[in-house]
């Protein structure tokens, strides 16, 4: 068995596990890992300017590519700085491998005044992410890393954190690096699957809800096949956007609160196939939305099934093999019925189509025009982006991203950088508000160092205007929502990136296209009135 330091063992283990990208910032506590990186030419390191950036980049990398990247931080402030992106990844079921150091085993929890000491780092991390271990011996490192990766790949994806005590970073030990094992997707129980198929086939008006789990499971193809066999309309959650091309005849798009036509569709349905969705507050109007009585729910997380709405059939399995088997074992519906259904769906789509009056609609249309069909859009928490689920059509899985559940300001820019690192050949746009941009704008330096052709559209309304509007509506006056913001064009230029100001959707479209021709990011200030 080879002899390695703990730092070397971490890198050898993640590399053996198929992870080739690390986002992070070096520190005194991680120096031994960084030194070992010099001897690992197959692992790429991206240096960030705040650990929150490292976390969001790893998140964007994973959401865009389906691959796992590592975010590497020091003890203490490195861990608290990455707390928000880990919370974000947990809420959105995004697989981020977080590796950090912690105090020497003999010092943990003693409140001795150690540099970077937290009261209870393990407890803290364990409260944020669903999977967490502190390693005890150098020889344990490969097994712990393999466990974490297996957990993220086999089950519901989400972040995992591994703490390496400081005294192990430079300590040498014999270690055995296991070969990578790709987990087999969890297959459905045959009898339950048969019953589910029977129910769906027997229903007159089935509908399908595709959640983020369809995208995470790369199950779009069999999902579309099932929909076509059943002639069932498909709608998606926000994270499920792209599971079905939104120009597919059976797609009704992303359900939007208050769209009566959707709700009519649901109330006339007699069965509903739910795939990879929590049936969350957002997607069900706080569980007030009446759903068909016959719910057939497929989820990789058994705890989700039947939690908020009773499921007549719960299938605890990976979505891809389950849907593949469903599609294979379903008859096709009569052509006439299929045509009628498509006509109904077309009517619904007409009724929900954008009016074109809101500024957001024009901006989103311009972005859509500038982005090719397989281009990636990263959204943030800002007024224009709130219209994206409804008014930005998406055609492929893993092309539309939003901090939809955790709702983190400043997500989009570093997440877009991470996606660009994962898929340099794809075109990417980040949309962000002027308030949100300030949270993570230091990563402009990172994008510049990486020479990324990345347009960053700052939707500038001079404040936290979503809240301003809410205040004026509720109280007739406002407190502290308007912001003094920097001049974003000058800010961009101070960083050495390109920067332009535009004021119309057509200029925006041109500016995005121009940005793709540069080997550096472009800040596009879109001033809203």
């Amino acid at each position, binding site marked *: 068995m080879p002899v390695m330091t703990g730092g070397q063992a971490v890198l050898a283990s993640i590399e053996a596990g198929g992870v080739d990208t690390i986002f992070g910032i070096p520190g005194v506590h991680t120096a031994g890992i960084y030194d070992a990186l010099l001897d690992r030419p197959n692992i790429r390191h991206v240096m960030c300017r705040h650990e929150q950036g490292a976390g969001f980049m790893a998140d964007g990398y994973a959401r865009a590519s389906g691959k796992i990247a590592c975010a590497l931080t020091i003890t203490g402030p490195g861990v608290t700085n990455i707390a928000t992106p880990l919370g974000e990844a947990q809420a959105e079921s995004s697989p981020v491998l977080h590796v950090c150091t912690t105090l020497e085993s003999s010092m943990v929890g003693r409140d001795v*005044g*150690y540099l970077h000491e937290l009261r209870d780092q393990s407890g803290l991390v364990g409260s944020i992410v669903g999977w967490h271990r502190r390693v005890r011996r150098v020889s344990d490192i490969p097994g712990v890393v393999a466990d974490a990766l297996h957990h993220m790949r086999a089950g519901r994806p989400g972040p995992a954190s591994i703490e390496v005590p400081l005294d192990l970073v430079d300590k040498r030990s014999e270690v055995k690096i296991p070969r990578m094992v790709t987990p087999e997707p969890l297959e459905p129980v045959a009898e339950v699957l048969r019953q589910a198929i029977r129910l769906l086939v027997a229903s007159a008006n089935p509908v399908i809800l595709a959640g983020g789990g369809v995208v995470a499971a790369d199950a779009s193809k069999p999902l579309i096949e099932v929909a076509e066999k059943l002639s069932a309309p498909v709608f998606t959650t926000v994270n499920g956007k792209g599971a079905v091309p939104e120009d597919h005849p059976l797609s009704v798009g992303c359900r939007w609160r208050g769209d009566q036509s959707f709700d009519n569709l649901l109330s006339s349905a007699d069965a509903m196939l739910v795939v990879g969705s929590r049936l969350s507050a957002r997607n069900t109007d706080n569980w007030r939305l009446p759903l068909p009585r016959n719910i057939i729910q497929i989820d990789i997380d058994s705890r989700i099934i039947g939690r908020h709405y009773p499921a007549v059939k719960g299938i605890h399995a990976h979505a891809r093999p389950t849907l593949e088997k469903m599609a294979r074992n379903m008859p096709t519906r009569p052509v006439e019925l299929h045509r009628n259904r498509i006509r109904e769906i077309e009517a619904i789509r007409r009724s929900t189509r954008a009016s074109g009056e809101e500024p957001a609609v024009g901006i989103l249309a311009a972005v859509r025009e500038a982005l090719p069909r397989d281009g990636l859009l990263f959204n943030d928490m800002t007024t224009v982006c709130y219209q994206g689920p409804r008014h930005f059509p998406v055609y492929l899985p893993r092309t539309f991203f939003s901090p939809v*559940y955790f709702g983190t300001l400043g997500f989009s820019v570093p997440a877009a950088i991470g996606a660009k690192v994962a898929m340099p050949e794809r075109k990417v746009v980040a949309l962000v508000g002027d308030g949100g941009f300030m*949270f993570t704008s230091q990563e402009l330096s990172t994008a510049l160092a990486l020479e990324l052709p990345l347009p960053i559209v700052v939707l500038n309304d001079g404040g936290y205007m979503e809240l301003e509007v809410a205040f004026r509506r509720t109280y007739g006056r406002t407190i502290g929502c308007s912001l003094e913001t920097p001049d974003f064009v000058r800010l961009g230029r*101070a960083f*050495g990136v390109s920067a332009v100001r535009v004021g119309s959707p057509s200029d925006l479209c041109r500016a995005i296209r121009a940005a793709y021709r540069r080997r550096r990011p472009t800040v596009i200030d879109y001033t809203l009135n």
Partner: protein
Amino acid sequence: MPLMTGSDAVVQSLIAEEIDLVFGILGYHTEHLYGRLMQQDKVRHILVRHEQGAGFMAIGAARVTGRAGTLFSTAGPGALNGATPMGEAYGDSVPLLNIMAEDMSQYLYQDRGIVHESQDQFGIFSRLSQWSKQVSGPAEIPAAIHEGLRRTQVNRPRPVVVEIPVDFFTDEAEVDILRAETHDRPSGDAADIQRAARILAEAERPLIWAGGGTISSGAWAELQSLAERLDAPVITTSSGKGSIPEDHPLSVGNLANQGPIKRLMSESDAMLAVGARFGYLPTAKWSIPIPERLIHVDIDSTQPGKNFPVEIGIHADARLGVQGLIDALDGAECERGEWVSAAQGAHKTVWDEMERRAPVEMAIQRAVRQALPDEAIIAADPHLLGYWARSFIPVYQPRTWLYDLAFGTLGYAFPVALGAKLAAPGKPVVALTGDGGFLFTSQELATAVQLGINVVTVIFNDNAYGAIKEDFLRDYGRAYEVDLVNPDFVKYAESFGAVGLRASPEQLGETLKHALTLERPCLIDVPVTLQRPLVMS
């Protein structure tokens, strides 16, 4: 008892508890709270650009006033964005009151996909605070705030959390508002204090070790008086800077890791430690020779004896404990001319050596000090000049030196300086930071410009995580991923509407003086490559 909403209970409690400054960013979960906040004018709210900024500003305000810094956090990312300043305040013993919103009480922690839902927000913040409470209704809010504030007074000052599920902001209940109260702090066992006073009076070569507790409890006058009565030289930690003016004949400053001072400690036959924990950095990883006869006064009863064995551990507030020792000396005045000369000699040896071997670093520090009046507040954070400044920028007044020694957070200096300036608007405030660290929290330039918080920030710019780079080269002989692509900091400042200046190390003193006259937020970029602080054997 009056009927009121939870939001009113929060606002009325803050007024009654005499809290006049609160930091935060509003969010959906705190919208109702802010709606009530704007209907009064006793509590000023500072809107920041990232919740980490709110926490750090609250730390700055707390460290210059000695009272709990207060912030509002919204649920989920808003709360988690404040994790670092919470960890910082815990690690460096700063009192904070973090009033945070949570999801609907009936939906907590059930993986429901609610906006801003955490797996376990309360679990997260219970681990970042000395005390935390999730209220079960509006009626519990005033008592929770009151109890949190009590604990910041009577315990070692560390953060407390009051977590309020969002429905309780709008729910109404009969609420009893509690008024500000000063709580008695422990004054130590009288017999132990008598015994300790005797040991110190009878010792031939006593030393005093003044930690951050001396500052946070307001014990500097007593400490100086005790030192003079005992004629005992005073070593301070970084956090203890300002316990005694560094030009006082008994001050030997923060040099405990230097050979001459270590030898002084070896010769000492008794040490009084006040409000200190003998942590990792002040003791060079517990390698320095702390005298065996150690008397340790601390408000945290678990500290004495934890890192170095004590002869007497006194569980007392620093001020009350030191006053007790003065009383127990009963007017005795000691004379230890030779010992004090030895201490002064050791101090001078270190300074002379540094002047000789690090003229650039020492000249920069002298220029900064000379540009600032004694009462000016200096906030600094980990970077090479910051490492030097912990020992070689003399501090003359308490609560004018703000540094994050224990937790060691990058990006601390600038927002802490803003909070300090808001709490002490009459004093000049300067932040000393590095190019790497500054970008962690630089968005608060917008806050500074919007509110006219006129802090001068000096960036010692080596286009690298320079301190880490030095560590790498020292420990591994090579360095990886430490060189930075930076913005042009002058243009960066100007893009916010702040003043941007550039100065060579030689020009810094004049530029800093000039910047302080501008009465505007100002950034000074100082391109310079510095060496690590030198350690004498």
